[in-house]
């Protein structure tokens, strides 16, 4: 799915709280489900009363983090301020490639997180100096934990 255009300019993300269990399911058709995109969002096609939507579903906390990360990357790239790199998936730190004081280039590997038996390399979103690495190999991290801070 996610092939033909279904989005309209101005469509805003919708945050769904626990109250959504009251959803009226009349005139609802669920179409294609999946795949999961590179940000971990699940694609779901839903047609409600004939209106067709391709939706990307993600946990609210992760959505906030992802947005902050992209904001930080944009701001950091422009202003050069400190950048907190946070875990976008929960897991275990497999290896750490940098230490405080190191100078890194954009795209350089910082560390690897193991989650669901997969190693996910985390790369520097911009160049800078590593000011803090609050995790070490073997640490367990939760979604949103700070992994590396770039100066």
């Amino acid at each position, binding site marked *: 799915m*996610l*092939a*033909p*255009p*279904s*989005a*309209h300019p101005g*469509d*805003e*993300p*919708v*945050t*769904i*709280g*626990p109250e*959504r*269990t009251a*959803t*009226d*399911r*009349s*005139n*609802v*058709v*669920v*179409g*294609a*489900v999946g795949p999961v995109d590179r940000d971990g969002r*699940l*694609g*779901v*096609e*839903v*047609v*409600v*009363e*004939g*209106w*067709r*939507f*391709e*939706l*990307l*579903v*993600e*946990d*609210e*906390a992760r*959505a906030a983090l992802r947005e902050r990360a992209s904001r930080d990357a944009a701001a950091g790239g422009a202003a050069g301020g400190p950048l907190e790199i946070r875990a976008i998936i929960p897991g275990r730190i497999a290896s750490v490639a940098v230490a405080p004081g190191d100078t890194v280039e954009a795209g350089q590997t910082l560390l690897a997180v193991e989650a669901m038996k997969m190693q996910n390399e985390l790369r520097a979103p911009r160049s800078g100096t590593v000011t803090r690495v609050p995790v070490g190999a073997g640490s367990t991290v939760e979604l949103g934990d700070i992994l590396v801070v770039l100066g």
Partner: protein
Amino acid sequence: MTASSRTAGKGASLRKDGGRPFARILVANRGEIALRIIRTCRDLGVETVAVYSDADVEAGHVVAADTAVRLGPAPATESYLRADAIVDAARETGAEAIHPGYGFLSERAAFARAVMDAGLTFIGPTPDAIDALGDKLTARRTAKDAGVPVVPGTYEAAAVDRPDQAAAVVGAAEEVGFPLLVKASAGGGGRGMRRVTTAADLPAALAGGAAEALAAFGDGAVYLEREVRPARHIEVQLLGDAHGTIVALGERDCSIQRRHQKLVEESPAPGLTLGERAQLHDLAIRAARGAKLHNAATAEFLFDTDRRFWFLEVNARLQVEHGVTELVTDLDLVAEQLWIAAGAPLSEAVLAAAANALTPDRHAIEVRLAAEDPARSFAPSPGRVGDWRMPSGPGVRVDTALRAGERVPPHYDPLIAKVMTVGPDRGTAIDRMRRALDEVAVTGIQTTLPFDRALMRDAAFAAGELSTDWVATRWAGDARRAEALVRAAQVAAGVADGVPVGAATDPSLRKDGSGSAWREAGRRASADRWPR
């Protein structure tokens, strides 16, 4: 409704003998109308030849026909509009006649002539009648000469390329009155049409309309017509045989339109008095007789707020919306077309239906399901269909050639299905349509379903308050869509939580109450902005 001398032709004796009008015909069209024609042929024992483009290799009409012939690449100009290739295909496959359907070559007199020159039968009016009616200026003159009130306007092509004539055109426009419409003489579907509110805008509208008409139809002739608004669009189904008999088979109200294209049609037109209906049918027959028309045709009128009928045009072919008339009259208009083309006089069934045309005892409605986005000014939305479930049950008819998983090509008309309902009265037909539309399930592409659903719940529509302005004044697609988005996001979040997909349409299976960890954390769903 005069029954002139009804000489029994070749077709009449065949019909009595349980014969068939032709042994084999070629259907020069695609999509739902091609399949609809093929179905009647099967009923009659007539073999069928389909034609197709490269975009339609495995389309429904190709699968249904006995034989199929490739015409060329996907663009219509290289396939369905190639008169020579179609006539050749008919010759090679031994077809005796060609049914043009609607659109494409159906109203091209040159095509009808080419078919006849090849020794084949054209299932439609004579080329001369197509000429007389297909050209709107000629049709206006023909109707006027027949004593039919024509929408006020001009009767000759405007001199677009003659600066010395500019003052005369402005003078004519002032006589017609503003706002007026610049219309293409060869036009159809609103192309070449321009709305003009002041004389200052006239030159640009004439030039723009003429250029668009030239590009679309190869004929840049334009004329002026007063804008009758608000108005209802009401048309009369006509059937005439080669022996001079022409009858009216009731009228259809097609007022619900956007950009001069019909979205919903119904028969009979709500709220007409017996006298008005009789007057309308009489005007339609007069216009058709003036053009020496036979076979199937439709005379279109505007019905203004002073309850006057104004002739618009005659379409000398089967209309998209012919099915509503079939549901009310119980006729098969395609079968009648074939018999007429074979030389038979109008059947007893047709004459009986015509006799009842002023007092119909059924009401039928059709909605056109199209691959269009009703939140974005009905912009085309072609693509591959996923699920495709059409309604059925009492009083429901669906004409479509589309199947699940099939692609709606971007090259042709966006119409993908016609959903029709019938009942003893209008209220029943609307109730059935509401239910039928609830049964529709289409994924993969956006369709006009939300619009149709809303219309069937609209108080003004239910009250029979129809107008060609309905879409412009009462339809707020964006707001409707925004409401649905919230529900869609809730459903999507439930799917991500593992609520079985099957539960989506069955409330009894719904996961309820106690929230999972995911649920407590909240979910966020956003519409994908593809391509990213």
